[in-house]
């Protein structure tokens, strides 16, 4: 851990070089890159800054009381399947609302995109009725930043049979395999598939002064009290602050991006902890607020001059929302696996990663071995259909099966569909008086066909592994998302993209965007490493532009 000097503190009236909105996977990295490059940075984070003492193992508070995520009470959302439907109040998009963002409590899966992800549209000929296009960059251009992300954050893993090319090995050896991983390996090998170690942004040994994982088991959706989860919160933001040029300002809920008459961003207006509006002046603004809040902020920054929202001459802001598909197969085994220990994930297969047009649908993904439950959620949903819902049979099954259960999870693609979008709700306001987000989402039929394809293989793997009992998660339209992607995507053509290949908005020279919204395709279900790599790359280019006076 770096020696932290006195933290920088800027007055809102001081014009800093960069105001960064959001402190998560992308915001943390860009703050560190820009501050290290010599620029003054304020990171505005709507959520609080939690200390290690506040990292708890509170499943109820975390999952059911929105302790560290956006709350339906103060920031409600509305949801509809299609633009023709009327949106009803429903919380569908969940993100970490604190310094570090969703990244602070994520599962830790770290998959690179493959070269095939970047030019699928031109190779397959597109998918009618969708916005599937190529990325404006190829794998080779992003590879150095994937490597940088792995080594600067800390990733444990081992080369797998379908890995894309890499210029350096994994920084750390794999985490210990779990029983679920052994069983996935057994079943997958029996069927001729090629199981591999799941790459995880979690330390398998002491790394960069941070502890190795202690296998406490309260991993996904919890912050790591050992600092072993390699996140912006522990690996990037402290470095940014240590430069003496970066202030992280929690409790700062950005309401608008302010613009001059000449069409430049001049700063951001935000609510402080007392709900008073403040203006932080900046020479440039970088949005890293996640794939839902970033477009919402742009839309909320509309004015009489730009009624359609900021940076939105294309009409693309908020559109082509992608969330990935998550389904899978539950399985019970004879002996205790004790999946409640350690990280979620130790083994996976990427045999079905690529699209195979012969299957009759776009898409592909991965299957991994995990658990996905904590005690309450297990009692509510971890037992097979047909189990008594109360009484002696229920209690006995809980007692026997909590340690004997696992989940073969499928992770799949989402096609970019223009109607899947974030817009402003026409009437609902949040606790600060800002228009709420209205989420319009319906999985493309190919997304669900792909999920079904993966799930049927997961089922075969579970049985080949010797499961005593298996049951599938029903494949049905999704109404919950934590991967928020595609809504301000990169592209060379300003008519069908919001930012250029360097994350500069087409419309505003000193406004940049880098987060899940930048993604052109959804990845095969694990986008975080790509967001991190894009952020390292964006940080480098933005610093270069600033040095050359090109902002």
């Amino acid at each position, binding site marked *: *851990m770096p020696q932290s000097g006195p933290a920088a503190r800027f007055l809102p009236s001081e014009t800093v070089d960069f105001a960064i909105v959001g402190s998560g996977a992308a915001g943390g990295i860009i703050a560190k890159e820009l501050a290290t490059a010599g620029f003054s940075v304020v990171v505005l984070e709507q959520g609080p800054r939690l*200390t*290690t*003492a*506040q990292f*708890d*193992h*509170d*499943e*109820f*508070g975390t999952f*059911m*009381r929105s302790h560290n995520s956006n709350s339906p009470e103060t920031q409600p959302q509305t949801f509809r399947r299609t633009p023709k439907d009327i949106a009803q109040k429903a919380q569908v998009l969940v993100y970490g609302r604190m310094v570090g963002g969703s990244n602070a409590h994520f599962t830790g899966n770290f998959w690179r995109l493959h070269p095939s992800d970047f030019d699928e549209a031109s190779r397959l000929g597109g998918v009618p009725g969708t916005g599937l296009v190529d990325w404006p960059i190829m794998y080779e251009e992003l590879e150095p930043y994937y490597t940088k992300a792995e080594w600067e954050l800390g990733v444990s893993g081992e080369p797998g049979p379908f890995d894309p090319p890499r210029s350096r090995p994994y920084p750390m050896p794999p985490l*210990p*395999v*779990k*029983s679920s*991983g*052994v*069983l996935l390996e057994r079943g997958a090998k029996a069927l001729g598939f090629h199981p591999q170690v799941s790459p995880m942004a979690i330390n398998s040994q002491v790394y960069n*002064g*941070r*502890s190795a994982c*202690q*296998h*406490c*088991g309260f991993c996904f959706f919890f912050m790591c*009290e*050992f*600092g072993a989860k390699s996140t912006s919160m*522990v690996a990037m933001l402290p470095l940014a602050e240590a430069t003496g040029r970066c202030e992280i300002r929690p409790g700062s809920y950005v309401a608008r991006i302010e613009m001059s008459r000449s069409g430049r961003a001049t700063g951001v207006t935000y609510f402080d902890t007392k709900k008073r509006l403040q203006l932080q002046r900046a020479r440039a603004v970088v949005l890293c607020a996640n794939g839902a809040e970033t477009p919402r902020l742009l839309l909320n920054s509309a004015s009489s001059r730009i009624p359609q929202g900021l940076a939105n001459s294309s009409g693309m802001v908020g559109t082509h929302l992608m969330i990935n598909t998550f389904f899978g197969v539950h399985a019970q*085994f004879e*002996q*205790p*696996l*004790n*999946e*409640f*220990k*350690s990280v979620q994930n130790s083994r996976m297969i990427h045999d079905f990663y690529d699209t195979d047009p012969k299957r009759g649908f776009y898409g592909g993904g991965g299957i991994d071995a995990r658990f996905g439950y904590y*005690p*309450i959620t*297990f*009692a*509510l949903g971890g037992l097979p259909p047909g189990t008594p*819902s*109360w*009484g*002696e049979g*229920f*209690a*006995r099954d*809980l*007692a026997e099966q*909590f*340690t004997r259960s696992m989940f073969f999870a499928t992770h799949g693609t989402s096609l970019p569909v223009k109607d899947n979008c974030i817009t402003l709700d026409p009437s609902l306001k949040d606790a600060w008086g800002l228009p709420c987000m209205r989420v319009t989402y319906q999985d493309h039929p190919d997304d669900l066909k792909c999920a079904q394809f993966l799930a049927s293989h997961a089922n075969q793997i579970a049985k080949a592994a010797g499961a005593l009992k298996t049951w599938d998660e029903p494949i049905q339209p999704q109404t919950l998302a934590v991967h928020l992607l595609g809504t301000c995507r990169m592209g060379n053509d300003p008519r069908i993209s919001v930012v250029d290949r360097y994350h500069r908005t087409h419309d505003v020279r000193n406004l940049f965007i880098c987060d899940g919204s930048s993604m052109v395709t959804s990845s095969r279900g694990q986008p975080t490493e790509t967001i991190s790599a894009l952020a390292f790359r964006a940080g480098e280019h933005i610093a270069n532009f600033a040095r050359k006076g090109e902002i």
Partner: protein
Amino acid sequence: MTDIHNRRAFLRAAAAASAAWATVDLLDIEEALAWASLQVTKPQLPKFSFFTPDQAEVIAVMTSRILPSADGRPGAREAGAVYFIDRSLATFSKSQRQLYSDGVMDLNTRATRTWSASPGFVSLTVMQQDTLLRTIENTPFFQAARFDTIVGTFALPTWGGNRDYAGWHLLNFTHRPVFEPPFGFYDAEVNRRK
């Protein structure tokens, strides 16, 4: 030693081993753990904030039928789920108060109506209680009580239930800050073969 004491001992050892993060936050962590420890090991049972003693007994019995104890395996009653429910109704779940008050009254009414000698739900035999609960298992009251019984049995003790982690013992869920491989039967088996 309780899990909390294990955790504190571990943190002290980590600080001694110069893990920088541990030294910085050790006092904060110790304070938080000390408070939590106090909540868990308080000798007296808390008073009910919302339920009358009679109502609390009806709900406690109801939780014991939803998640019964058996053969040394604790159930919702041992875990004190009723204390979680009471606290939730007193604080963040005020909107459920009428549902619970009416539900308790209804249970007692059904008990005396069906078994005319009975003074109420808690006086019925276990079999009679289950029979009665089966007749209301699709009602909003039962569904809410089932959900709350589960949360009250398995949530962190700081929420009022899961006393002394009885609920986690029911699941064979060991709560420790640190584990080491092998974690379960199948990874242990692989390691033995090596």
